[in-house]
């Protein structure tokens, strides 16, 4: 996978993960172009499109669009299910996840994605294992917080 973008129906970018090195300018250009293209598509259209030399796989969940760019030989359907598994992970972690959870706890959304995908490849598909790893990371974080009593440390609101 080359990158994953999450954006709202209004075209606001909520999360971006790039697995290929690109300049900020290029990233912005790609984002703008893809958001426009995907938002312009009608509901019953197919979830895949050719874009430059990549394939775009996207799916809408409520107000959010999840959009992945994969390479020519990658499998479109399994990418759709990568998106779905990620949504499931978010849902399990936040409990009925909604767009606001991702806006206010975006770093958690990134942590979860990083446990699931690493360097653009699926690392761990077991829901249980991913959530366990996140739980342990949360634990570690709490421990360090107590260890240093640091006020400058930004605490994360627990959403469950």
């Amino acid at each position, binding site marked *: 996978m080359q990158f994953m973008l999450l954006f709202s129906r209004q075209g606001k970018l909520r999360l971006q993960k790039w697995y290929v090195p690109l300049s900020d300018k290029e990233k912005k250009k790609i984002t703008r172009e893809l958001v426009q293209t995907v938002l312009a598509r009608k509901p019953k259209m197919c979830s895949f499109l050719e874009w430059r030399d990549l394939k775009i796989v996207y799916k809408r969940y409520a107000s959010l669009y999840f959009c992945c760019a994969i390479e020519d030989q990658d499998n479109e359907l399994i990418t759709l*299910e990568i998106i779905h598994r990620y949504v499931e992970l978010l849902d399990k972690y936040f409990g009925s996840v909604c767009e606001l959870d991702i806006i206010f706890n975006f770093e958690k959304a990134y942590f979860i994605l990083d446990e699931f995908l690493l360097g653009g490849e699926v690392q761990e598909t077991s829901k249980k294992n991913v959530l366990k790893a996140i739980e342990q990371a949360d634990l570690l974080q709490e421990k360090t917080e107590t260890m240093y009593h640091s006020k400058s440390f930004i605490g994360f609101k627990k959403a469950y």
Partner: protein
Amino acid sequence: MPAVSKGDGMRGLAVFISDIRNCKSKEAEIKRINKELANIRSKFKGDKALDGYSKKKYVCKLLFIFLLGHDIDFGHMEAVNLLSSNKYTEKQIDSMDSVKQSAALCLLRLYKASPDLVPMGEWTARVVHLLNDQHMGVVTAAVSLITCLCKKNPDDFKTCISLAVSRLSRIVSSASTDLQDYTYYFVPAPWLSVKLLRLLQCYPPPEDAAVKGRLVECLETVLNKAQEPPKSKKVQHSNAKNAILFETISLIIHYDSEPNLLVRACNQLGQFLQHRETNLRYLALESMCTLASSEFSHEAVKTHIDTVINALKTERDVSVRQRAADLLYAMCDRSNAKQIVSEMLRYLETADYAIREEIVLKVAILAEKYAVDYSWYVDTILNLIRIAGDYVSEEVWYRVLQIVTNRDDVQGYAAKTVFEALQAPACHENMVKVGGYILGEFGNLIAGDPRSSPPVQFSLLHSKFHLCSVATRALLLSTYIKFINLFPETKATIQAVLRAGSQLRNADVELQQRAVEYLTLSSVASTDVLATVLEEMPPFPERESSILAKLKRKKGPGAGSALDDGRRDPSSNDINGGVEPTPSTVSTPSPSADLLGLRAAPPPAAPPASAGAGNLLVDVFDGPAAQPSLGPTPEEAFLSELEPPAPESPMALLADPAPAADPGPEDIGPPIPEADELLNKFVCKNNGVLFENQLLQIGVKSEFRQNLGRMYLFYGNKTSVQFQNFSPTVVHPGDLQTQLAVQTKRVAAQVDGGAQVQQVLNIECLRDFLTPPLLSVRFRYGGAPQALTLKLPVTINKFFQPTEMAAQDFFQRWKQLSLPQQEAQKIFKANHPMDAEVTKAKLLGFGSALLDNVDPNPENFVGAGIIQTKALQVGCLLRLEPNAQAQMYRLTLRTSKEPVSRHLCELLAQQF
């Protein structure tokens, strides 16, 4: 992140992480990291062998640093060693698995970033062995790593084939709940299955019979399961299941050795073609495209032709329609070519603009490849021009000329067909090009019929001449000289055309030179010389169709699959494999045979066979042909170098008294038919849209003060495709250079899809002038050259300065201008509703002052102003008398210069 399950597990790591997180600034963080890196480096390099715990701790620290986004250029070998270490006890397996996973994917990332950092060695065997790991997550990560590494080092990882097959076999045959958390909506380990199938596609079919047997069994199981009723109605279930199915089909196609599996795959895809899920229809069409190129499944794919044609007609999603068109192209062979070509032609009429050019190319290729009789081919290409002329690129119409030239059985038919096609009142310029070339070569074949006698052919072609671009007119001039040779009876008529001032003194150097040389050639050369020089073109040498090359460029590799492999139709390498030269012509290769890939205007008939007179004339003809490419460059350089000086200076340089010697004149076509109408819209206003078609919009904003003006032109690309070689230029026909100076700023040569570029024009009125400058816009859109000539909305009234004056003064001046030639008057019918306010606004927009209480009749309008030019000022008085009853106006203009009076009167009269 590796998990830390106990408080005392890798305390150093926990401390390091907290240190980093407590860093107040980026600099502090980098400092801490550099310190740690130095520490780790010294530990790894140190003499003392590290124990497993330390090694693990340091690799984890490196991982953490890497995850923070810092570059790690060492430690990967330690990671690899850890990866396959067996020392770690069972109680640590949980956290170790997660390290292995991360380590494998980190190594993959390192390898992708810099393959040289990861030398292959004995560790590769241990990585392959990870496929046997009991932890599915580790296997998943390892497969990703191996799939990437084995592409460059297939032999190092060869042993992965049998391991991958046995792993796959275990997954595929497992019950839907065996794999617990790795089962996804009743589908066992779909991600891992897809990855394993992908990995196997890096290798040819297994050599070991037992392994191969097991794999074929797996593939069959997947195909069988596709027929079973779904275990869940959820889309996730069917997606995961079908993801494996499509990957299985990809592997079957990759092996291309099991006819039974290929046909089963095709049938399965056939079912999907009519599935209610758009996604599945899309993927089935895409997969079938590759299946069509296998000799085992080509026939099976062809049975679905009706469904695919139906998809082309009824799918609502353009991307699905595109897939259907691709598949039709891929499944085309001699048996169904006519049906497919006619369906694609029909589709072309309504196809999205974005894909028209590609469809045109495909139709052109199929028509040539599978033509049994070439009259069908000629008909098809002419239909293409008729339906989508704008999208027919040079390659396509050059190719039809090559083929007609090389096949004498179709020449008469082609001449007759183009003659008929040219009868249409509005035919595309590409049709004129093809028609002009073919009639010039083979018009004699239909000259016997009085309906297409030589004079009729000539007047038909010449009726299109004035509407065409310079390139086409140049081609037509060559046709005319060929006519003189073919039909001596047309000589006088054609010589008269060539002799006309519009040709002989044409502002375009190419046209002028052709006219001069052809006229002289026709006058001085004897009939024999003429016949030799203008002999029919020799056959073109065989070559790959450049259309195919173009399609490949457009679509990337694999696009030409229908043509690339001739294996499924071994008999097809006869007439259609390419145009073969006849033996007699091989010995006389034509110097001008390189028709393809040349500039837009094919060279005039060059004499290949005639040795004596030929050489001399080649020189004559080569000269002008080479010139157009040189032409614009010096002029552009002038403009860019001379930007700051006074506006008239570039004009002075360009105002060469002998235009024939000037390499600069732009070869621009005549203004478009509606140019006058568009110009009229701007007589009384300065801003608005000057021109708009499907590709381009041109907007204008301008302001004028005294004899100076500044104009902004906005060129908007309405398509999603970049315009190339975009060049808008301003041209001064006739004497205009001495009357009006227009300095143009350069614009970028590329205009992105959806983008708008702005061009600034500085204008200075030097003297009174009557004709507006021309704006020539040329660019390439999707490879096809586009040219457009408009009239720039700069008319003499723009330099009007309104003058207020009392009634007495007005009448005094009016009387002073009483010579008959100083007055111009026009009585005309109202074209618009007669509204006094609108009329007032128009007169003010025209530029004159409106004087109240001058005319005894309050219904009438009286105005006054001075036209400001650099050389002189021209005072103007005007009077407009509306007659509401008769719906008529009478307009009277009096100025000190006769032509100005008449011109203003004409301009203004068209506004009401």
